[in-house]
C-alpha cells in the first residue's frame, strides 16, 4: 500500500502533476490524514483492504473490495463534467439570486406598505371596501405626490409640486386623472389659506390627503410619493439616456426646484435644449420631460418627449448590462418612493396600466378655465380656483354626486362654503372619452406574492415612480 501514499504525496509535492490534471477530488481532511500517515510511516491500519475497512484512496479498479462490477457502473467523465458545471451554475445563479433578493428586500420594504395615520376628519374609504382587492370592489382614488429634492418624506419645509389624483373604477375599468395646480389657493385644514403644495410641508401625506378630502370631497384610498431627485439618480445610475431631441426646447419659466441652493423654493430657471441626437444626464432628462412651455401643442408634445426618454430608459433597464447596476438603482429608489400600497397592489396596478388604452384616460387639469392666476392681499402669486366650474367636473369624474365640494376659504373645514349646489354648467372635461380598459391584470402576476416577487416588483416600483414623475399612467406602459 505504500506506493499509493507515495503517489498521493507526489501529487501534492509536485506542482507539475497538477498541470496535467488531478485524477480525483479529495476532501482536504482525507488528504491531510493520509499525508500524515505517510509522514509518520504508518502503513497499516483498520482501513486497509483486507482488514475490514474501506479501500484506500486511489486504489486501482480490481483491487481489494472494488471489483469489476462496480467499475462498470462508474459515471462517465463527461457526465461528471456536465454535473459539475450544472452545480457550479446552480451555485452561481443561486448566489446571485440570493444576493439580489437581499439587495432588493430592504429598499422594497422601505417603499411599500408605508402607512400614514389619518388625521381627524379624514375618513378611510378602505374600510368600506372590506379588504377588497385594489382592482375589485368600489372605486379607488390614489393621490400622487411629487416633491423636489432629497429627504422630503418627513413633513417640514418641503413642498409637493405634483398633486394628482388617479381614480379607477374597477367595475368599468375607467380611469381618470385630476391634476391640481401646486399654487391652488385653498383652505388647508387647521392652517388657514395656503397654496396646495404647502399642505405637504405643513403636515406631510396626512395633511395633503385630508386637504383633498375636505376641500373637494375626494376620499383618498392610497398615496404614492416620489422625490424627483430619485428619478435623476435612476437616470444617472444607468449612465444617462441618449435621445434625438425633437425640436429646440425653450422655457423661461421652468421650476428651479431640483438642486436649488438659493432657498427660493418658487424660483425659475431657463431652459434651452438644442435639437438633435444627444446624451442627457439625469437633470437634463428631467428638464426635457417636465417642461410644459416648450411646445405649442402643450401636453401632447410633452407626452412625446416623455415617451422618448422612457423608451430610452427602459431599453437600458432591459439590457443585461444593467444587472451590475441594479443594486445602485435599488439604493436610489430607497427614500425616494413611498406608498401605502402593498407590493402586490403595485404589481396589479402596473399590469393594469400596461393594458390601458391611453386615449381612454379622462384627464382634467384644473388650470384655466377652472382657475386663474392672481395675487393675494399679501401680494403672493397664487392660482384661484373657480368652484362653480370645478365641482361638476370632480362630481362626474369621481362619481361623488352631492359630496363634491370646493372649500376655498379658511375655517371651512366642514365643507359648507361651496357645494355641488353652485349653479354652473359643467365645462367639458378634456379628452372625456371614458372607454373601457382593454384588459384586466393577468393572474400570473397577481398570484405572485411574498418576498419572491421582489425583483419583479422592484421593476413595478420603477414604473410607479415614472407614473408620478411623468404625471401619467401611460408612463407605466412603455
Amino acid at each position, binding site marked *: 500500500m505504500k506506493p499509493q501514499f507515495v503517489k498521493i504525496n507526489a501529487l501534492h509535492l509536485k506542482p507539475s502533476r497538477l498541470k496535467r490534471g488531478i485524477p480525483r477530488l479529495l476532501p482536504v481532511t482525507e488528504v491531510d490524514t493520509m499525508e500524515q500517515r505517510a509522514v509518520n510511516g504508518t502503513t497499516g491500519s483498520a482501513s486497509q483492504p483486507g482488514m475490514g475497512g474501506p479501500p484506500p484512496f486511489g486504489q486501482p479498479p480490481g483491487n481489494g473490495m472494488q471489483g469489476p462490477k462496480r467499475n462498470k457502473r462508474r459515471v462517465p467523465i463527461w457526465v461528471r463534467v456536465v454535473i459539475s458545471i450544472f452545480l457550479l451554475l446552480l451555485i452561481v445563479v443561486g448566489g446571485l439570486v440570493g444576493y439580489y433578493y437581499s439587495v432588493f428586500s430592504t429598499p422594497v420594504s422601505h417603499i411599500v406598505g408605508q402607512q400614514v395615520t389619518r388625521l381627524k376628519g379624514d375618513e378611510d374609504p378602505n374600510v368600506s371596501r372590506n379588504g377588497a382587492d385594489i382592482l375589485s370592489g368600489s372605486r379607488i382614488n390614489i393621490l400622487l405626490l411629487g416633491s423636489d429634492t432629497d429627504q422630503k418624506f418627513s413633513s417640514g419645509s418641503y413642498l409637493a409640486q405634483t398633486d394628482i389624483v388617479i381614480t379607477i373604477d374597477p367595475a368599468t375599468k375607467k380611469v381618470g386623472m385630476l391634476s391640481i395646480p401646486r399654487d391652488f389657493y385653498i383652505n388647508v385644514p387647521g392652517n388657514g389659506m395656503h397654496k396646495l403644495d404647502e399642505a405637504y410641508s405643513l403636515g406631510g401625506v396626512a395633511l395633503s390627503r385630508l386637504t383633498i378630502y375636505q376641500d373637494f370631497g375626494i376620499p383618498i384610498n392610497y398615496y404614492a410619493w416620489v422625490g424627483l431627485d430619485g428619478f435623476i439618480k435612476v437616470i444617472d445610475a444607468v449612465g444617462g439616456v441618449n435621445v434625438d431631441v425633437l425640436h429646440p426646447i425653450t422655457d423661461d419659466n421652468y421650476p428651479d426646484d431640483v438642486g436649488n441652493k438659493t432657498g427660493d423654493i418658487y424660483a425659475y430657471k431657463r431652459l434651452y435644449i438644442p435639437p438633435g441626437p444627444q*446624451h442627457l444626464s439625469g437633470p437634463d432628462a428631467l428638464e426635457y420631460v417636465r417642461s410644459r412651455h416648450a411646445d405649442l401643442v402643450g401636453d401632447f408634445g410633452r407626452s412625446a418627449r416623455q415617451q422618448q426618454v422612457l423608451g430610452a430608459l427602459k431599453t437600458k433597464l432591459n439590457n443585461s448590462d444593467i444587472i451590475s447596476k441594479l443594486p445602485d438603482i435599488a439604493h436610489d429608489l430607497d427614500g425616494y418612493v413611498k406608498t401605502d400600497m402593498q407590493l402586490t397592489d403595485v404589481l396589479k396596478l402596473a399590469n393594469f396600466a400596461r393594458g390601458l388604452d391611453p386615449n381612454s384616460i379622462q384627464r382634467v387639469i384644473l388650470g384655466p378655465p377652472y382657475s386663474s392666476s392672481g395675487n393675494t392681499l399679501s401680494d403672493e402669486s397664487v392660482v384661484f380656483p373657480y368652484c362653480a366650474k370645478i365641482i361638476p367636473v370632480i362630481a362626474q369624474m369621481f362619481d361623488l354626486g352631492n359630496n363634491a365640494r370646493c372649500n376655498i376659504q379658511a375655517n371651512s373645514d366642514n365643507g359648507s362654503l361651496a357645494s355641488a349646489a353652485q349653479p354652473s354648467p359643467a365645462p367639458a372635461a378634456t379628452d372625456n372619452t371614458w372607454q373601457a380598459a382593454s384588459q384586466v391584470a393577468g393572474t400570473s402576476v397577481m398570484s405572485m406574492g411574498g418576498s419572491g416577487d421582489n425583483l419583479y416588483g422592484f421593476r413595478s416600483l420603477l414604473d410607479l415612480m415614472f407614473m408620478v414623475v411623468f404625471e401619467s399612467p401611460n408612463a407605466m406602459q412603455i
Partner: protein
Amino acid sequence: MKRFTPWSTRLLLLLLALSLQGCLGSGGNNNQVGNTITTNSNGNKVSVAQNLFKGKIYFTIDHNLWVTDGSGAARELIHGSNIYDPAISPDGKWIAFIARFKDFANLDYISAGGGPVHILLSGNGHFYNDSGFIKNTYYWFAQPAWSADGTHLLFLSDIEKEDWYAATGINAPLLDLQVFSIPFNNPTAKPQDVAYASFGDGGDRDPSYRPGHPNEVVYTHYAYDTATRTQQVIQLFLEDANAIANHPGVYHPGLPGYDPGVAITDGKDQNLQPAFSPDGNAIAYVRRESSSQMGLYMMKVPEGVTANPNNPTVEQQALAPYHKSSHILSGQFISQPTWSPDGKQIAYVSYNNEFDLWLANINYNAKTGVWSMRGIPVPLTSGGVDGDSRPFWTP
C-alpha cells in the same frame, strides 16, 4: 487506472467563463481606434485614429474644447467652460464658441494659439416681475458661424424676445431663437436680424454663410404646419442675409410666411443640420427617417431663389434640387455633418452606445450629379464625444 482528459474539462470551463463574461457584459470596450487622449465623464477612454484625414478637426468632449490633426494626436484647448459649437475664423486666427451657464450663454472667442477667453456677447441678466409675469433679461446664444471674409459672425439668440410684446401688445415673449449677425470688430453694434423664427417650436438652428455667395445663408427652420398648428415641420431654408435689414417693415418674426427665407427641402420630411460644401455648391444634411434612424444626404444648392422668396414659381424652383438628393448612408442618430476643406470627406457624429466622430469618403459624379460614398465609413474617435456640439474642420 483510468486515464483522464483534463483538456476537455478546461475547454468546458473556458466556454463557461466566456459565456458568463458575455452574460454579465464584462470584458471591456475593445473598440479603441487609436491613441487614447482622455477619459470622459462616462469613464470611457476616448481615442483618436490617425492617418485618416488632413487638417484639424475641432470638437468637444464633456463640453471641453479639443482639436485633433491627422497624426492621431489631440490637444485640449479649453477645459471646464461648458463649450459648444466651435467655429474657426477663415484666416485661422480665432476660435468663436459658446459657453453655456445655468440661465444664459456667452458668445466667446479665443486666439487659435490659446490665451485668454474674450466675451463677444454676454447673455447674463436677472429675473424680474412684470405685473405678475415672471420675466428675465437673460439671453441664449448658440452656433456661431463666420462669414467668408471673417468680418461677421452669424449666431442664434433670443435677444429680441420682448419685441413681440412691444409690437403686438401680447405679453408673451418670443423665446424661439432667431438668426442674427454682428461685425466681429464691433460687437457692441446692434445685431442685424438675418432670419426670423416661427412662434412655438424652438426657432432656427444650424446657420451658416454660403461660401462664394456672401449674401446667402442656410439654416434649419422649426415650425408647426399652418393648417392644424399641431404637426412639426422641419425644413432647410435659404435666405438673403440682408433681406430683412434692407426691407424694414416688410417682414415680421413669429408667423410663417412673413420672412424672406425660402424652403429648399420638402415639408413632408424632417431635414436638419445643413452643411455647405467648401465651394458652396452642395449641401450635406440630415434627414430623420424614423425615431432613431437618420440618413445623411447631399443636394445641390438652388440658384437665384433668394431674391424673390415668396413667389410660388420660385418656391417650386427652390425645391427642385432636393428631389434629386443623393442618399449617402443611414444609421442610428447620424448627425452634425461637416465637410473636409478639400470637399472629399465628410465627418459626422454617429451612435453605437456612445456618440463618436466618423469619416466617410465622398465621390461626386459631375455627369449624373450624384454623390456617393467611397468605401465604408471609419471611426475617427471611440469612447464618446459630445453629440450636441457641431464639429469644425479646418485646413
